[in-house]
């Protein structure tokens, strides 16, 4: 059984603790520019959406890599960058449909989410549980539960749930 990052944008306050935790975990420095997870804000901050690698079952980045620097860690199911092999050609950054693997000019290598070896720092630090680390086959469980509870077969509207969390 593997786990996956589950992201709930409605809970995100855009505090960027995750970006700092990520850069600290990987590079020992507080630096959102080096984070593997990124928060995007829309409409004057109305929406804040955390975004990172989904660890595709068929990893386009790994398929594209000419030097086989991207391999899957069987323990976590994460596709990881082997920095000894990476030549910084950036082809993977073009191949990724989601843009979640990126070049880091400080090291001339690419970087992506590696789930911190199975204990993701972003999920641990998130103060609102907008980012959680759950069993990957049940990432919809919470929403399914809410739907079941509502009795209408659909989750509450965005506005309602936002008001409750606000």
């Amino acid at each position, binding site marked *: 059984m593997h786990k996956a990052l589950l992201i709930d944008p409605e809970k995100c306050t*855009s*505090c960027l603790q995750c970006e*700092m935790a990520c850069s*600290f975990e990987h590079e020992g420095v*507080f*630096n959102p520019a080096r984070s593997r997870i990124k928060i995007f804000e829309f409409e004057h*901050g109305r929406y*804040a959406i955390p975004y990172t690698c989904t660890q595709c079952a068929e990893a386009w980045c790994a398929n594209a890599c000419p030097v086989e620097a991207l391999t899957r860690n069987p323990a976590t199911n994460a596709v990881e960058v082997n920095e000894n092999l990476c030549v910084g050609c950036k082809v993977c950054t073009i191949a990724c449909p989601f843009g979640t693997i990126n070049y880091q000019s400080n090291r001339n290598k690419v970087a992506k989410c590696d789930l911190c070896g199975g204990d993701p720092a972003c999920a641990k*630090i998130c103060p609102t549980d907008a980012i959680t680390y759950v069993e990957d086959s049940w990432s919809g469980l919470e929403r399914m539960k809410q739907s079941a509870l509502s009795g209408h077969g659909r989750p509450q509207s965005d506005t309602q749930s*936002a008001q409750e969390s606000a």
Partner: protein
Amino acid sequence: MAWQNNVLRIDLTTRAVTTEALNMDWAHDYVGERGLATKYLMEGMDPKADALGPDNMLIFATGPLTGTMASTSGRYAVVTKGPLTGAIACSNSGGKFGAELKFAGYDLLILTGKSETPVYLLIEDDNVQILDAEPIWGTTVWHTEEWIKSHHQNPQIKVASIGVAGENHVRYACVVNDLHRAAGRSGVGAVMGSKNLKAVAVRGTKGVSVNDPAGFMQAVKASHERMAGHKGRMAFTKYGTHPMLDMMNEFGGLPTRNFDDTRFDGVKNINAKAARTPNEHGHTNLIANKACFGCTIACGRISHIDKEHFTIVNRKEYMHASGGLEYETAYAFGPLCGVDDIDALTFAGFMMNEHGMDPISFGGTLAAAMELFEAGVITTEDTDGVELNFGNPEALTIMAEKTGKYEGFGKILGLGSRLMCEKYGHPEVAMHVKGQEFAGYDGRALQGMGLGYATSNRGACHLRHDTFGPDMNDQTGKDKAKPCKDSQDYIAFLDSTGLCLFTSSAGMKKPMYMDLLNTACDHTWSDDEIDQAGERIWTLERMFNLAAGLTMADDNLPERLLKTPAPSGTAKGHVAELDIMLPEYYAYRGWAPDGVPTTQTLQRLGLDDSAKG
């Protein structure tokens, strides 16, 4: 470590850009942000200089904890001589700009001189450019931010800018960053405008390192956990500062219609509950709460205006969400102006953010103008035909926009209450200290607050001291000097760390701040040294003001608070007992009876040199 050990200096007259190592002795004595910038200001300019002239210095300052994982680490301060007060101005802000400046590698950005033509700064790590602001001069904060990101094809740039209000030296213009966070008070935006500086745009990719990473992360964890379980934090997250409206109204300390009353009947229409309750069209004002950089509180309100409301019914450009009401904005537009229309308040708030103005000072100035209007001193001939009565929501929203755009009667309102009321021959109508308008607490009901207002180095302000406890327990001037002085010093320290003052109401205690600092920095402070740093910062601000020409006569409250008893509430019949508190306060500070720090006090704080000014 923690500090970037790097100061960026830009002379806007000569366009010289230089960097220098941070003076580490000063960093140890003044910590960072507010304190350190005050030291650089005192050493770098003549306090008698014209606040709006080229000899004024404008400093953007981060703290040692800015940009770290400590909660609320997004703060930066803008320190300069203020045009509203003629005293030191020090306004701090959250959002994401401050951390970005730190990530670019700078503790302080020090601006001197004046550019001949409008410019903006683009700081991308070591690459610093002074660029032509002609395409954005005369436009709003919101447009400026969008234009810079788009023009440089980098949405990751963070921007601090001024609107037309700042360009035209509206005395309480602020510096707005990240669309709706502001270094709000004392007119720091007007100083930026006087230098022909439209914006500071920053992209930083260097990050911040700490001295003892393991120890620091332990301190972070402890403070995060403390705040997560704290009731004050939970209330801030859920309601922001908005519930203070009901508290102050019940207590009878809510300044209403320019301090004519201390209670406001319309509170129920503009309070935190109203913001969350659907109106007759099914519209709910409040949408969500959002955080500044690194903040685990997230007190920021995101709101929108009812599409059918008169303010935006034909103006689609304001139908989006943006920064909503917090207590001070709600108070200054609501009770103080007698307006109880929540969407009008929200729209006026949008105007403050879009055009870059301090809502407290704007509200205070408008309330004074309303009093002059109702007294017949000014008429619709002065006010561009607008009926400037208390309670008129259109008067609020129209004048907020006019002042922001620097049009018509807005130009007069842009003077601030003191200059405006002097102009009309009624200085007694202006409710201010040192020229700066009051926050939403009546000094007759909260005595320590009155003392804090009178002695605040940046003019009337509620964030420079904290005497709520003593004020709630006893409504006389007795025993207010000590808590006032002690909290002033403590907050001067807190404001110098890079963290938000609200952490102290959300569970954080002094040992937690010390653990964070002492693990982050390659320097350690003892408990006493922290106390002394706070007192040193406060006293140095005082020395700046004295050198600028202020005297004990400026440590005063308006006659209305000193002579006219509070008409209602728990403090009914009380006046502000400043005559009792002030001498006690001076004595407790080790200042002479004329409010000048004694030689012994200066020596004790290592400020002997500052006496020369």
